[in-house]
């Protein structure tokens, strides 16, 4: 039986294997070693939740701690990538993007285009996203739609340990800047993961489950909730097909259309806020390209248009639940119209 490891171990293993394969792969960010200047045996922490733990002992010349200045070290990553390294920088929480956004969207994303294809920016920004750990508004957002919107950036959002390792290796080997979104609630989830290095290509969705009655396109953590929803609906004889895009830029539109052609119904489960979200984007694409196949209105299940609340009770209501996804899928099948997305 194949080996099982966690989502967090899978990312760590991808970093380790790529750092070993290619000495130009460098990893840095706040506390990635374990505190500035700490020797190998003291690198107990390895990032705020321990994703880079142990790397300093193995590659002391390829990993470093940075000052608490995202504008400086994300900018340094862009420069390092432009001049021959393959940096993997950690923006601890994506909520901190504001102080380094110019470096990402106006520099990293633009340079290949501005230099007529002669410059490449092979950098990865690892970042945590999502609610669910009682970390309040400034550490809980799902801001991937903003990066998906920017041409020149690629956006990977793994939902499981297998994809996390393969997408990370692909991201490091890719010659374009990649935003790599790690969901903190998924860090402890396990999957079968090969010990050898491998890639998962960008722009190929995964069919998590095959079904006939309704397509659920789910992103990141929502994939797991969509599976629970599908289990709930199986007992009512509703068969759900679950499609996980894995990367939102590039987006595998064809796989989504292929599934909608079969089922004629679509639910999009997306933890981001509803306006200009992945849910609204995918709903629009399907409305535009699959109108003749649709047998009921597209349903979107998202967070409400509010910041993530700190109150645990409200936070639990904020994140889309498997029950809400199931309700939307059932309504799509029974043809019930109405608003099931943002409450």
């Amino acid at each position: 039986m194949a080996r099982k490891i966690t989502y967090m171990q899978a990312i760590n293993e991808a970093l380790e294997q790529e750092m070993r394969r290619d000495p130009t792969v460098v990893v840095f960010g706040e506390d990635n070693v374990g505190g500035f200047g700490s020797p190998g045996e003291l690198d107990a922490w390895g990032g705020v939740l321990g994703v880079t733990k142990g790397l300093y002992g193995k590659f002391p010349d390829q990993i470093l701690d940075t000052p608490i200045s995202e504008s400086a070290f994300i900018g340094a990553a862009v420069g390092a990538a432009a001049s021959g390294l393959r940096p993997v920088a950690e923006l601890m929480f994506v909520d901190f993007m504001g102080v380094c956004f110019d470096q990402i969207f106006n520099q990293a994303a633009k340079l290949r285009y501005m230099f007529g294809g002669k410059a490449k920016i092979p950098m990865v920004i690892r970042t945590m996203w999502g609610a669910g750990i009682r970390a309040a508004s400034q550490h809980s957002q799902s801001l991937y739609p903003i990066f998906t919107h920017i041409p020149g950036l690629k956006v990977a959002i793994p939902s499981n340990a297998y994809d996390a390792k393969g997408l990370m290796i692909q991201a490091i080997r890719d010659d374009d800047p990649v935003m790599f979104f790690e969901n903190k609630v998924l860090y402890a989830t396990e999957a079968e993961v090969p010990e050898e290095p491998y890639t998962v290509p960008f722009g190929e969705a995964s069919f998590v489950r095959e079904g006939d009655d309704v397509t659920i396109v789910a992103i990141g953590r929502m994939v797991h909730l969509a599976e629970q929803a599908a289990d709930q609906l199986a007992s009512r004889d509703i068969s759900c097909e679950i499609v996980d895009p894995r990367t939102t830029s590039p987006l595998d539109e064809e796989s989504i259309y292929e599934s909608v052609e079969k089922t004629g119904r679509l639910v999009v489960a997306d933890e981001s806020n509803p306006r200009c979200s992945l849910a609204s984007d995918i709903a629009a694409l399907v409305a535009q390209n699959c109108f003749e196949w649709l047998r009921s209105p597209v349903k979107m299940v998202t967070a409400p248009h509010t910041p993530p609340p700190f109150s645990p009770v409200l936070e639990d209501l904020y994140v889309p639940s498997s029950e809400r996804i199931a309700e939307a899928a059932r309504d799509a099948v029974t043809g019930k119209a109405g608003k099931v997305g943002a409450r």
Partner: protein
Amino acid sequence: MITKLGMPKWGLSMTEGKVLGWLVEEGEKVDVGDGLAEVETEKINGEVEAPAPGVLRRRLATVGQVYPVGALLGVIADESDSDAEIDAFVADFQAAFVPEEAADEAAGPATQTAEVAGRRLRYLVHGEGDGVPAVLLHGFGGDLNNWLFNHEALSGTRPVYALDLLGHGQSSKDVGDGAATLAQSLVGFLDALGVEQAHLAGHSMGGALASKVVSEHPDRVASLTLIASAGLGSDVNREYIDGFVAADRRRAMKPVLELLFADPSLVSRQLVDDVLRYKRLDGVDQALRTLAAQMFPEGRQPIVFTDTLEAASVPILVIWGERDQVMPVAHARSLSSGFTVEILEACGHSPHMERAGDVNRLITQFWERA
């Protein structure tokens, strides 16, 4: 004698199967290997075969229902066994049956690894009788799971090993000089296990490798079974070989894999995904390109063993699907009368999957004779 008809375990990852339909009525006579029910798994559909001769006295599984591996699907017994005895058998079984937990990896047989000339070979063994051991060799791009319908069925009286060839599955991806290194690693594998002589059964490229072992070390081979084998003629479908090597996405891979079967609906999305997962491992692309360039360049096979095998004293059984779209069945038809050739109808390049019952029966009988 009362015999249980259980949900089989096809491959390492199978935990449950859905009964699609019964192929035999209650009260009908059945023989070992007869297909009794059709079962769907995550990866592939197959037929549950009768484990013993007798009468199908009970059909317990409901069509459309999912059952765990090992669950009681039906009962085979003699006509002389009373209904009361059968009811007691069923009641006893159901009272004692505990389905294997999906997560309980210790329950099934686990793969092992052997170190051969600095390279790792993964293998799985079934059976432990004192018969001459056998080794199953998959084809180009395959792995030991390709024998999921055969491995256990063949292991009644002997240990049967299925391995991942170098460059494949979870074995080392370094194929060295290609075919020569792969054939050497097979002899090294027998050495590592302390096996003096073995029955070799190879599918497609695995057949050519087994033939190479016969040509170089005939004393190590008790018999040779060649299933839709490479190395028996000069043609091969370039569309398959080049397509398999080039395909990096689901849409490109699916039509290629459909060439493996007479019935293309056997290619599930899961099968395509599993092959792509393998192809995306570091080193696999290079391994496949090395082997393809050497053994199947431009739709030809430069390495042919027909003359060598004809002269060899090792017993040889050749099995082929009549509708093979990868290796032409003409290769089997043009073999001399010195070869035992079985051509199966309604069957493509994968007889061991599409006609598993017949292939298992042919090989079992062949091994017993050899």
